[in-house]
């Protein structure tokens, strides 16, 4: 399998305000993150609010280019490309946000909303309508409803439309940022099934961002756990579920409500870090000694050099 996306030491820092340079403390929202996503898989990024997962997503899509590090798409480095050269790659990576209500322009019919993107990428004019019908059909929206306005659809339907619009760019990578968090419980499963169905029909890779460990463990092939801007554990879903290693992952598992807390999570007990490493920074050398170290094969855990 080949990698569709590779992150090499991606850091996104934000500067504070102040006239004096000393006041401008740099805050690293994403700190030295590296991982790869294989084509046609689902990669899950889990973490609590403020851990940097959404910032990372924006960096990957180069909406907010990273401050340091490289992003490679099909082995082509995207960081440093000019806007014009970036454009074709932008289309290949689309994002779906949490809130479908604000993602659609309330004053535009669904047809118009979707048409915009297709026109932008010079889709043959004569085929646009047909294409929109196809896409809506694909996500389970009655194509004849395409002249309706967003407010005429329910939250779940809107999210389907947003997904259809993202698909109109014919992306290879879909970044899904908490796509079901704002939806009702009974609707969430519909959207998740839709995402799985789509993957069966078209070649798609997902980067699925969520705070919900249950959901991620159901859906994803590989999971990265993020905390305070760093990826602290990275492993195939089975490995991380059966043997969570990093203390933060354990904490996340044990506090997850429902079955998670009682069955899988609570049986997790503290695990020792790999030889020569520790989970907390033992001494302050001024150097960043944090890295992802292999715990077992491709099961990586983030720790500090002793």
């Amino acid at each position, binding site marked *: 399998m080949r990698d569709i996306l590779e992150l090499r030491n991606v850091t996104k820092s934000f500067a504070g305000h102040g006239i004096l340079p000393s006041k401008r403390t740099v805050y690293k929202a994403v700190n030295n993150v590296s991982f790869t996503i294989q084509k046609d898989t689902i990669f899950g990024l889990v973490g609590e609010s403020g851990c940097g997962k959404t910032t990372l997503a924006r960096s990957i899509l180069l909406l907010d280019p990273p401050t340091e590090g490289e992003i490679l798409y099909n082995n082509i480095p995207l960081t440093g490309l000019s806007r014009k050269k970036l454009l074709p790659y932008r289309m290949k990576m689309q994002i779906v946000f949490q809130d479908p209500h604000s993602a659609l322009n309330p004053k535009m019919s669904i047809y118009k909303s979707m048409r915009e993107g297709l026109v932008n990428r010079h889709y043959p004019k004569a085929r646009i309508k047909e294409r929109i019908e196809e896409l809506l059909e694909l996500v389970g929206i009655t194509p004849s409803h395409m002249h309706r306005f967003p407010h005429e659809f329910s939250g779940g339907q809107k999210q389907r439309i947003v997904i259809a619009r993202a698909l109109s760019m014919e992306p290879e990578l879909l970044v899904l940022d908490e796509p079901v968090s704002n939806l009702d419980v009974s609707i969430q499963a519909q959207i998740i099934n839709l995402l799985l169905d789509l993957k069966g029909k078209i070649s798609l890779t997902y980067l699925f961002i969520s705070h919900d460990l249950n959901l991620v463990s159901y859906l994803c092939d590989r999971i990265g756990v993020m905390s305070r801007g760093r990826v602290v554990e990275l492993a195939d879903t089975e490995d991380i579920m059966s043997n969570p290693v990093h203390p933060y992952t354990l904490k996340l598992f044990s506090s997850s409500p429902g079955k998670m*807390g009682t069955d899988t999570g609570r049986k997790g007990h503290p695990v020792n870090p790999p030889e020569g490493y520790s989970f907390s920074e033992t001494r302050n050398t001024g150097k960043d000694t944090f890295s992802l170290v292999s715990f077992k094969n491709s099961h990586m855990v983030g720790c500090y050099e002793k």
Partner: protein
Amino acid sequence: MELTIKDLDVSFIQGDREAHALRGINLTVGKGEIHSLVGESGSGKTVTSTCIMGLLPSPPVRINKGEIFLDDINLLSLSEEDQRKIRGMKIAMVFQEPAKYLNPTLKIGVQITESLILHLGMSKTAAEEKALDILTTVGLGGGKRILHSYPHELSGGMKQRAMIAIAISCNPLFLIADEPTTALDVTLQEQILELIMDLRNKLSMGTLFISHDLRVVHDISDRISVIYAGKIVENSSKTELFAHPMHPYSRLLLKSIPDAEKRGTRLVTIPGKVPDAENIPPGCAFHPRCPFAEDICKIEEPEMKEYQEGHSAACHFCGTGKIQ
């Protein structure tokens, strides 16, 4: 203290449009019991809680029929002034987003002590002493500093603790917690759930816990009522509900929750969406989405029936073996 809701029926009236928000709710929460009301948005959970609090503005709200008893006090028959005296004193409420539900320009201390001064007639100094105690109870030690903090100076979890401190300040007999952890991260969520259980033990308050999240409900409740389109469709102890859900809606809801064990299988979904309160289907409100529905479901509304001790459901086919 026991809270009993009998046949509560509430509509929202706007012009000639009527939204039937609650269609005969029956609910009993015993002393020291944590009773969860689970449902999706628009199912009527929040209308129920605000109705108990007497906070529904009328108009547009019209209470068609029903009674709410706190022991032998009929809450709905009280004058507005008497209702006000019960609020905060005997029944208290905790809300979803502490950041929004706390007054940004008043110190936490003031927000706690004002109800003590108003309801219990305490002096300012006595109220501050008491407030310190309460803060310790909710796990906000180092109280003096907190008393003099403004909400924005506290973290999200601390804000929710402060919110709870405000609610329990007058030792209420009954607590309504409306999605108190939905805006919080999982690690904080767990702490707040533990706090609510802890307070129940210490103060033996009855608690009505409102949530859309079955997993959270699983962790906290003694009993659970499942609400759909303004009506309770299933009521049972927690263990029973999770082990043997009866109503098709609860069954499907439980099955639709993704988790690691369902990996590789397709999630069960409930087709369609929650009906809006203006257009509730006739018969069983769930029938258009129900895979087991038959003709009778479209015409006749099923009654709540007790199928096992302490486990009731409202479905024509419960106990027939038809629902798999």
